[in-house]
Every structure is written in structure tokens, then in C-alpha cells.
């Protein structure tokens, strides 16, 4: 029987340990402690970030999995995600807005099992959240909440002038003329920002128009419906709005409403929530109603936000556990949603009549039974080419050209050519 010397023992155990570490790529201390990191945006409802941190601490206490949450400004998300994917290193979980799961399809873990469980509990995922998080039949991210575009109006001015709440975009033109005469114009941005697209989409769809066909290839912007849409924008710009909308960014319409200038804007409820929190005099005068419709129905834009897990993450399972913890338990999910004061609402069908809508009578207009939400580019699938059309602001620029003197037909032909060039690109 051979004896084991001290030197022999140390050599063997050190060698085996090192081989194990090299094979797994995880140091022993980390291997024992489960930990996930989550990169999410700076929420426009800051209290929701606080609540997320609080829920995260409870998650660690209940499961023993350490959770590290980092925040990033919405404008920096695209650059940060691109760098994480290129370097194949970074966070485990990432917050993804709208079409991001389509951009990073090959880099995201299949989360169909988690979404399946959530749908069993909370009902089907809403249309736009499904269109954006389910990529080619696979859930690449788990829908968590959405902010929707509704009409925000000055109730006091409407009452004073005896104006009816507009049900269609044509009705809005009628009341908009009166509002402008009163010195409180309609505020719909026509500039290179995303709020412009969030309004232009529903207007175009309600007239029956579209940018790119369902096949994701055929450009359909050159149509009589687009002519109708542009003619509507031209008369709105002339009779109901001020030229300043040509320079607006995503926050300008909120500010115009909060400072008492605009009489009607199209935006998520943030204008009201901020006015309420800052105790602005306009807070009491603001109310909401549903987005107007048109001859082809009522279509609305929203911003669904999801949680994805990078494929390079070594902590996919603890990551899934956190998603289940946050969204799977009704009481935790409710608590999370309530913290946003109706800015971010649930994206599951059974939760549409949510208690948060009863916390303020001015949220009554946000009830969304039967509403079909769509993201930019609908009904085309959000391929990178369709997203390039969106991100190149072709539709806002087509409208800007039309309202500043370019003939309607010429503006449409310009947009058609630009879209066709994008579709023909590599």
C-alpha cells in the first residue's frame, strides 16, 4: 500500500481544483453564491425604481440569490446593449423596450416557459407586447408592463368653451380650431422624435394606411390613405397648432401641457402625474380620454417593456427565478405596478381593470378593454429594416415636409423612395 506524501496531496488537489475552475470558468467562491445582475432603464416613474430595489432585497432574503440592479438612461440603452453583446460580457438580465428583442434575437435566452406560466396566471399577453417580445414564434423576453399613449386635455377649457371630447381625429380638428383661438393650441410634435411616430402611427392606421405590408418587404406608404393622413396633418398644423411643434422633443408636449399652454396633447399620463407630484396649478385641470379613431377604427400606440436574459449569462436560471418572483406572484406584481401611479400598466389581459386605475378618477379614461395596441411599423414584423425606417424618422420628416410647403404627393413619393432604399439595402 503506497503512502500519500504531503507534496503529492497538495499537487493533486491544486491541479484538480485549477482544472475545475478553468473548465467551468467560475471561481469557487462565486460558484457557491448565486448572484444575478439586472440592467434596467431609469424609469420615467422614479418610484417604480425604488420599489424594484425593495422587491429585489426581499427576493435575496427569500431565495438567497443576490440581485444587483444597475440603471441606465433610456437614450443610452442601445449603445450599452450593443457593447455588452459585442463583448459577450455584462449583465444577466436586461430591460428591453418595444422591439429590442427582435434586434437581439440570437443573443437572448428562450423564455417561453416563463411567459407560459405567467399567461396561465394573468391571462394572455396584450397585442403589442406579444408582437414585440415573441420573435419568430419564440418568447425572447418576458413582457412586464407598458405605458400607453392617450389623449391628455384641459378639462376646464373644454367645459368653458362647451367643447365635446373628440372621438375621431376629425373631431379633434373641430375642437382644435377653438382651442387655438383661445390661445391653447393642440400640441402634436412633428419632429425627429419618437412621440411624433407614436401619434402619426395611430392617425395613419385609423385612415387605413400603413408604411410596410405584413410581408415585411413591400412598401405601402404611397396610398390614398396616406394622402388623407397628410391633409389632416396640414390643416391641423395650420389651424390648430403653433409652428413650435417642428422643434419639439419627447418632453416638449408634456411641458406645454404642464405650463398651461397646450389644450390637448397625445402622450402617456406622465404630463398629469408630474403636474400632480409637483403640485402645478394645471394638475387639477388636466384629464384623459382614449386616443381618437378614424374610418378604419381606433388604433393606439404603446411602449411595452420586457425583461430578457442574455445567452452569454451563466445565471439564466436564477434570472428566471427573479422574473417569476417579480411578475409571477399577483401581490408582488400589483405592488410593483401600483408604485408607478398608472404610468406603467400591466400587459396581461386579466389585469386590465387594475386597482391602480381606481386610485384617481382621472385614470378612468385609461381602461383598455378590447383596445388593440401596436408598436411602430405595424403591421410589418419589426425586422431591422422596418426599425431602420422608424429610426430614420422617415414618417415624421414626410409630415414635416408636407406641413412646411412640400406638395403632399411629393412628400409621399420622397418617403416611399427612402423606405424602398432601406428595404433594398444589404
Amino acid at each position, binding site marked *: 500500500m503506497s503512502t500519500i506524501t504531503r507534496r503529492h496531496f497538495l499537487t493533486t488537489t491544486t491541479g484538480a481544483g485549477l482544472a475545475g475552475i478553468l473548465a467551468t470558468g467560475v471561481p469557487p467562491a462565486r460558484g457557491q453564491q448565486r448572484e444575478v445582475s439586472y440592467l434596467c432603464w431609469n424609469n420615467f416613474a422614479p418610484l417604480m425604481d425604488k420599489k424594484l430595489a425593495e422587491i429585489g432585497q426581499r427576493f435575496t432574503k427569500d431565495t438567497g440569490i443576490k440581485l444587483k440592479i444597475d440603471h441606465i438612461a433610456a437614450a443610452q440603452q442601445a449603445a450599452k446593449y450593443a457593447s455588452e453583446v459585442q463583448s459577450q460580457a455584462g449583465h444577466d438580465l436586461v430591460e428591453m423596450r418595444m422591439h429590442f428583442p427582435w434586434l437581439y434575437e440570437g443573443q437572448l435566452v428562450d423564455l417561453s416557459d416563463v411567459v407560459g406560466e405567467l399567461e396561465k396566471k394573468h391571462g394572455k399577453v396584450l397585442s403589442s407586447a406579444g408582437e414585440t417580445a415573441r420573435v419568430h414564434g419564440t418568447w425572447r423576453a418576458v413582457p412586464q408592463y407598458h405605458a400607453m399613449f392617450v389623449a391628455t386635455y384641459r378639462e376646464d377649457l373644454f367645459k368653458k368653451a362647451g367643447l365635446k371630447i373628440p372621438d375621431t381625429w376629425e373631431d379633434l380638428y373641430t375642437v382644435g380650431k377653438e382651442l387655438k383661438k383661445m390661445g391653447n393650441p393642440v400640441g402634436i410634435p412633428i419632429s425627429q422624435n419618437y412621440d411624433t411616430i407614436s401619434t402619426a402611427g395611430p392617425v395613419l392606421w385609423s385612415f387605413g394606411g400603413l408604411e410596410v405590408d405584413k410581408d415585411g418587404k413591400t412598401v405601402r406608404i404611397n396610398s390614398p390613405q396616406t394622402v388623407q393622413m397628410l391633409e389632416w396633418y396640414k390643416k391641423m398644423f395650420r389651424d390648430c397648432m403653433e409652428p413650435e411643434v417642428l*422643434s419639439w422633443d419627447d418632453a416638449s408636449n408634456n411641458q406645454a401641457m404642464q405650463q398651461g399652454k397646450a389644450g390637448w396633447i397625445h402622450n402617456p399620463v406622465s404630463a398629469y402625474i408630474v403636474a400632480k407630484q409637483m403640485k402645478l396649478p394645471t394638475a387639477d385641470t388636466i384629464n384623459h380620454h382614449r386616443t381618437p379613431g378614424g374610418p378604419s377604427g381606433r388604433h393606439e400606440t404603446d411602449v411595452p417593456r420586457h425583461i430578457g436574459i442574455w445567452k452569454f449569462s451563466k445565471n439564466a436560471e436564477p434570472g428566471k427565478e427573479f422574473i417569476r418572483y417579480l411578475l409571477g406572484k399577483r401581490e408582488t406584481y400589483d405592488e410593483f405596478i401600483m408604485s408607478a401611479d398608472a404610468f406603467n400598466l400591466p400587459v396581461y389581459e386579466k389585469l386590465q381593470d387594475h386597482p391602480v386605475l381606481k386610485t384617481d378618477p382621472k385614470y378612468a379614461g385609461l381602461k383598455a378593454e378590447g383596445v388593440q395596441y401596436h408598436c411602430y411599423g405595424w403591421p410589418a414584423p419589426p425586422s431591422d429594416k422596418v426599425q431602420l425606417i422608424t429610426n430614420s424618422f422617415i414618417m415624421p420628416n414626410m409630415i414635416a415636409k408636407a406641413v412646411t410647403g412640400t406638395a403632399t404627393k411629393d412628400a409621399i413619393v420622397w418617403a416611399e423612395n427612402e423606405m424602398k432604399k432601406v428595404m433594398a439595402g444589404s
Partner: protein
Amino acid sequence: MAIGSVGVATVQARVSLRARVGELLDREAWLGPIFVSPALFLLLLLVAYPFCMALYFSVSNAFIGRPSHFIGIRNFINLWGSDAFRQTFQNAFVFTGAAVGFKLVFGLSLAMLLNQQLWFKRLIRGALLLPWVIPTALSTLGWWWMFNSLYSVVNWTGLALGIMDPPGPNWLGQRYYAMTAVVVVNIWRGLPFFLITILAGLVSIPRELYEAAEADGAGPVARFWHVTLPLLKPVLAIVVLFSTIFTFSDFNIVYVLTHGGPINSTHLFATLARQVGLETGRIGEGAAISLYLFPVLMIVVWAQLRFVRKQAY
């Protein structure tokens, strides 16, 4: 005995190693590269590597997180078909030409003024440097408020003085006004660079030359044309060269003020590259946009450096 001999051998080896290293360091052929190598390493890591990656991306159909293929110069050819890109190309030259031109004229004038005997000269010099010291994103945010359609202090002042008709210019919403706004902010931001560098050049011109010119009957204009300007030429060439490169590649000012709008009328290569490369994921096309002017800038740099060398020797 044996132990003693090993000790002596080790000491001898140490001495000879130290002597050899010292000898090597005495040789210029070794010492030069040793001193340069840290900087060279940093340059390779932080400049050459990203640049080569960008070059590769620009000739590929790279998309974030997907395998890419070499496609030659197809990105560069396709880009020319885009109206937004052609507009950006034009904007870049208008923006750079106007901004560098004004910065040169104002910078030269201010430097000559500050080269005179003035009260509070140091305080004024310090104050004039401020725009260059403040982070661009922050200061541009200040300008954004000044040009904002709802709160514009520029319009408020213009209206109060009766030099503008209500509601005043839509600074960021109309193409010519928007371009004017971004050029103005770039001039404000870049002027101190011109001012300080030209001032340094002016200070180094010997007083005797001016005295000799004055003795020959030269007036202020003649002294400027025949003494100041010729001696400042190398400095001006370098300042214009650097400023042209920085201005062509400007990003912050346009990104904060206009996001490239209205109707792409203020987009520059950097802002368009971000929109296409990062927001849409088409890194190949984004890299091609940012490198489009690289050959032209290379020629400009080469020509100007050649000019500077001629002036110097």
C-alpha cells in the same frame, strides 16, 4: 567551502546582469524604444485597434450580435442613395466651413485685443476659457433652454427689445435657423481654443519686428499684413487643422440641440452614424458613415502638415 563559492558566483552573476542592463540602457537604440513603448502600446490598444475594427465593420454587413460577411464598398455606395446621408454630407461641410471660418476671424480678433494692455486681462482670459472647460453636453443643454420654443430667453430678449416679431424665430424647428443655432453653439464652444493658441503665437512674435516696421512707416494694417499674419501662419494652420477635424466629427452639440432635425437638416456624420449603427443595430453601415470622410480628411491633414513644415524650415 562549496557554499562560499556558490555565494560568490551569485554575486558575480548579479553584478554582471546589472552591468549588462546598464550597458543596454546607455545605448540610444535600446533606450528610445523602451521610453516610447508604453505610449505606443496605449496607441495600439486605444486608437489602432478600434480604428481597424471600424474599418472592418465598414466593409462588412455587421449587425449587432450576428455573424458578418465582407461586402466590399457596398455600404459606401448604398449610403449615397439615401437622402438623409446626402443631406448629412452637405450639412457637414456647411457646418464645418461656417464654424471654423467664424472661429478663425473671432479668435484672431479677440487674441489681438487680449494681446494689448488691458485692465483685468487675466480675469478676462480666464472667463473666455470657460466655454471650453465646461462639459459640452451640459453647456449645450443650457443653449437648448435658450433656444427652446417654449422658454427661449433669446426670443424673450429680442421681443422685449423690439427687434423680433412675436413669437420670434423657431430656432430649432426651421432648417436654416436650426443650422444657425448649432453653428453658433459650436463657435461659442470652440472659440477659446483659437483664442488661446493664437494668443500664444502672438506673444512669441518679437517686439523688435513691430518697432522696425513702425520705423519704416508701417501703419497698424500694414503691420498686421506684413508682420503678424506671416509669422502666425504656422500656428493658424495647426489651429485650423485641429478645429476642422474636431468640427467635422462633432456629436454632442447636434445630438443635444436638434437630434439631427428638422428633416435631417442638422445631422452630422457622427449623429447619423449613431442613429443607424447603434439605435438600429446596423454597425456596418454606421461605421461606413463615420468613415466616409476619412480619405478626404487624410488629404487635408497631409496638405496642411506639409504647409506647416514648409513654413517652419
